[in-house]
């Protein structure tokens, strides 16, 4: 290849994960392969229980893999670290910390001096649109605002990749659409690599450069779909609906398989 070879941000090779539940072994992932380039926005989509969250948690270093290779910017993942920011569906904000203190958590741990911390958090509060709520506690915020804090908190460490685990899954439809737009704005402003887990086809088509459709358990890559639509995307456009239909039909087959598996005795 020539000089402008795209740098791989996340590389997963033959990733597998086996859970031990009492006397049962559950094969969650098997031969999962994926490469995400620097600055790319990739959505992981699949039937529930297919292991999409497990993929994310393994990359985050919150879960051990059973086999294969996980590289983030060429380095093997061995434990959780601030180079991989994570945003959780449950927001996972520290209820006793204010918005500002939540965002500064990672900087505090790094030992960044207070003035510098305030500088970074002020910039991020501005970026995620939470001006005026610096000193509010999470309990006083709506779900959408909480997740803005979650995103800002993950960005505060200036991570190489942003791992998002159904971050808008518990929000109402309007808030969800708004935050999707906001996320794209933040993504283009920060140029982070984003790996985004969702079970919403619409969300995936709206957000992603590429959509990874996973198979039912044991999860592996069934199909990778290039969305290839210019942003901002119009949900009502014929092109959008066409991509949506394609993803949906892939997913439907996997749903059927998952259901058949559930019904048949092992």
């Amino acid at each position, binding site marked *: 290849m020539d000089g402008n070879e795209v740098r791989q941000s996340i590389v997963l090779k033959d990733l597998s994960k086996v859970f031990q539940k009492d006397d049962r072994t559950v094969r969650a992932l098997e031969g999962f392969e994926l490469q995400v380039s620097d600055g790319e926005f990739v959505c992981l989509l699949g039937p529930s229980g297919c292991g999409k969250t497990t993929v994310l948690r393994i990359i*985050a*270093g*919150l879960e051990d893999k059973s086999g294969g290779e996980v590289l983030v910017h060429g380095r093997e993942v061995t*434990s*959780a*670290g*601030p180079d*991989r*920011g*994570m945003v*959780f569906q*449950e927001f*996972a*904000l*520290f*209820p*006793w*910390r*204010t918005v500002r203190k939540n965002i500064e*958590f*990672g900087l*505090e*741990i*790094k030992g960044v001096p207070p003035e510098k911390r305030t500088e970074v958090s002020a910039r991020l509060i501005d970026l995620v649109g939470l001006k005026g709520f610096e000193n509010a*506690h*999470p*309990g*006083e915020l709506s779900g959408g605002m909480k997740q803005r804090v979650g995103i800002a*908190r*993950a960005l*505060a*460490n200036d991570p190489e990749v942003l*791992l998002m685990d159904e971050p808008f899954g518990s929000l109402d439809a309007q808030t969800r659409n708004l935050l999707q737009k906001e996320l794209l704005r933040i993504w283009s402003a920060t140029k982070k690599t984003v790996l985004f887990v969702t079970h919403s086809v619409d969300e995936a088509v709206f957000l992603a450069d590429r959509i990874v459709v996973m198979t039912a358990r044991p999860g592996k890559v069934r199909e990778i779909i290039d969305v290839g639509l210019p942003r901002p995307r119009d949900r009502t456009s014929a092109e959008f609906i066409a991509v949506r239909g394609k993803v949906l039909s892939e997913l439907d087959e996997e749903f059927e398989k998952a259901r058949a598996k559930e019904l048949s005795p092992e």
Partner: protein
Amino acid sequence: MDGFVGWIERLLLQNWRRVALGIVSVLLFIAIWWTYSAYLHAEWPFGGTPSGAAEYVPYPDDVLSAFVDSFVKPDPANGLYMTDNIASSLERILFGFVIAFAVAVPAGLLMGRLWKADAVGKPIVELFRPIPPLAWIPIFLIVFGITWGPIAIVFLGIFFPILINTTFGASNVDPVLVDAAKTLGARRSDVFLKVILPYTIPYLMTGIKVGFGIGWMCIVAAEMLGSVGGGVGYYIFSSSGLGRYEFMYAGMLVIGLLSALTTGLAGLVERRFYRWMGMK
């Protein structure tokens, strides 16, 4: 003490129905007491009293005047005023509390988070927790002596509620908060200090409130072991021994009031903490 005055004001304004009912409840109790006492003191037409136990149940107003006397007149047994007794008992309670807090909080955090610590600690805790403080008097006298023995008994009373609540709080920490901290770069020690400890504080406060109550319950037993400088517990059983039953009841009343006061103060600190931590 603006916060305290404000708190009282709010209590009276917002909860006047509660306060009124509380007053009615106490008055009703006094009325029942007075009736029972009057019954015991009554003379049958043919002479004698119903049970001969009248001296054990003095009238409420006798207890009230004994209560006042205990503050203004020295105890004939040792020349101490009630304020001296309160000071001595408070000192024991506070020493017991400080030591219990210092041991129970780290132990509870460890037992709540590490299964090995729990496996080691739990059998000992469950074995020793139900033993009444009174039972320890002989061995504590030998091991700790008359100054530290009473403190050790109070310590036992306060220690277990704090330990058990702290353990429960630490084991209940939402795992997603720990995950979040880890992805933000937190090391084990950071997770302990910045996630598990703050999460546990409300549980810890409950333990402290309960602990103070049980600490006061132990004070009579504690001061049976040693009562250098007097003590309210000592005052109760020495008054009882001298047949000064109205003074014994006055001492019991003092313990009730002191316990309510310390629990109330702990509650005030708790509310402060909650507001500071953004939890209501």
